[in-house]
């Protein structure tokens, strides 16, 4: 498998995406990072249940469906991470009293699942044409026992790591929108990981642009 060099040591696995592949949802996308693959579907702005209605903005609901079995606490934690990132970029005040639903189906998990979920979510939201102030992407970093930082780790690398962190990076100022960390690390290591993620995000945003261009190529 080809690896994509982003400079200064951060390496992402090969990634790919397809938009508008499902017929029923208003927006859909798949995102692959190496062997990790997530399918996302977006419905909305649609009718909202009275008890979930917010009078000045849209209600966003995120559902993460695991590959097998029922969704558990782990999926709930992922849902919350994705939901808070999406809420930060969506201009939800433009569609008050409506519901936005984002469904993320895990197709295969080979590490960096949360970042793959974030990337699939962003592509699907773009496909649905929902108003967004900026884009976001997810990057996962692992610190192994030799204090080496690995970006976009596989499941094997995640298991052997000392610390694991995922950041959502925005496309305008390259700021951190969300972070999820596990394990122990120093402040310096955290800053190094953020810097590496910001560097890697450039590649992903360029990839977003290229894949949207490809999608619109037939009607240009």
């Amino acid at each position: 498998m080809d690896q994509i060099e982003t400079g200064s040591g951060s390496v992402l696995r090969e990634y790919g995406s397809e938009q508008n592949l499902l017929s029923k949802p208003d927006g859909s996308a798949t995102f692959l990072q190496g062997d990790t693959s997530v399918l996302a579907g977006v419905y909305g702005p649609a009718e909202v249940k009275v008890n979930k209605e917010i009078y000045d903005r849209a209600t966003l609901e995120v559902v993460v469906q695991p590959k097998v079995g029922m969704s558990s606490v782990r999926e709930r934690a992922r849902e919350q991470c994705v939901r808070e990132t999406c809420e930060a970029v969506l201009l939800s005040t433009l569609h008050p009293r409506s519901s936005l639903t984002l469904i993320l189906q895990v197709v295969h998990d080979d590490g960096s699942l949360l970042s793959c979920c974030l990337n699939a979510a962003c592509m699907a939201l773009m496909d649905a044409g929902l108003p967004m102030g900026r884009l976001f992407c997810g990057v996962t970093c692992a610190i192994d026992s030799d204090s080496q930082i690995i970006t976009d780790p596989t499941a094997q690398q995640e298991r052997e790591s000392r610390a694991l962190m995922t950041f959502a990076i925005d496309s305008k100022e390259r700021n951190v929108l969300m972070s999820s960390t596990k394990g122990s690390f120093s402040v310096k290591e955290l800053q190094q990981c953020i810097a590496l993620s910001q560097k890697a995000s450039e590649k992903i945003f360029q990839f977003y642009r290229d894949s949207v261009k490809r999608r619109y190529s037939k009607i240009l």
Partner: protein
Amino acid sequence: MEAVYSCFREKLGQVILPGDVFCFDVSAVEGSAVRAERVICGPGLRRNGDEILVYKSGILRHKAPNLYWIDSQQKRYVPVKGESVIGIVTAKSGDIFKVDVGGSEQASLSYLAFEGATKRNRPNVQVGDLVYAQFTIANKDMEPELVCIDSCGRANGMGVFGADGLLFKVSLGLVRRLLAPQSEIVKDLEKIFPFEMVVGLNGRVWVKAKTVQQTLIVANLLESCENMTTQQRQVLFRRVAEGSL
């Protein structure tokens, strides 16, 4: 207008993504030449302080003198005042009909908003009927409202649909291409055989040809136009016209 146009020029007809911004370089214009200029931001663009923010992905379009918008392929409809849509009547309650237009909320349609309707003479509309109507009220904070008459009280092509025909959904981008004046797709399709077509801006298309078979052919051709280039479409239409379907 030049200063405004120059900042959009290089991106016209190109794909842009949410988060892109357009800034006006006022310093390039000489001090005395600075005049108030208006820019109209269509769908996908909004003002954010001194710059213009893109909030949808799609192709940047321009219409002289100062109208800019983003042409995007979406599926979900958001009501806009003045647009004509195909709705499905879902309920009758008192003096209004509830109509599903594919938006986030059902639109209301007064029974008096039909040609020739009075309090005594109610229009014959049943639940499940299709109506072609226009939005008189459509904004994010209020329930959308439809009418089936124009400002002179004439039907002007709007109202309840007759029997037969087939309704199907396509993307909003395709609908806009169909409704464009001198639409290539409609011109090519007309050459195959005669048919009636109603296109609503909410992505619903209703077609009726002489036979059921022909209706289905037209519907399938329109649906397949979604992801075809002009050449591919012309090849397909030629094959159908020669009777290979």
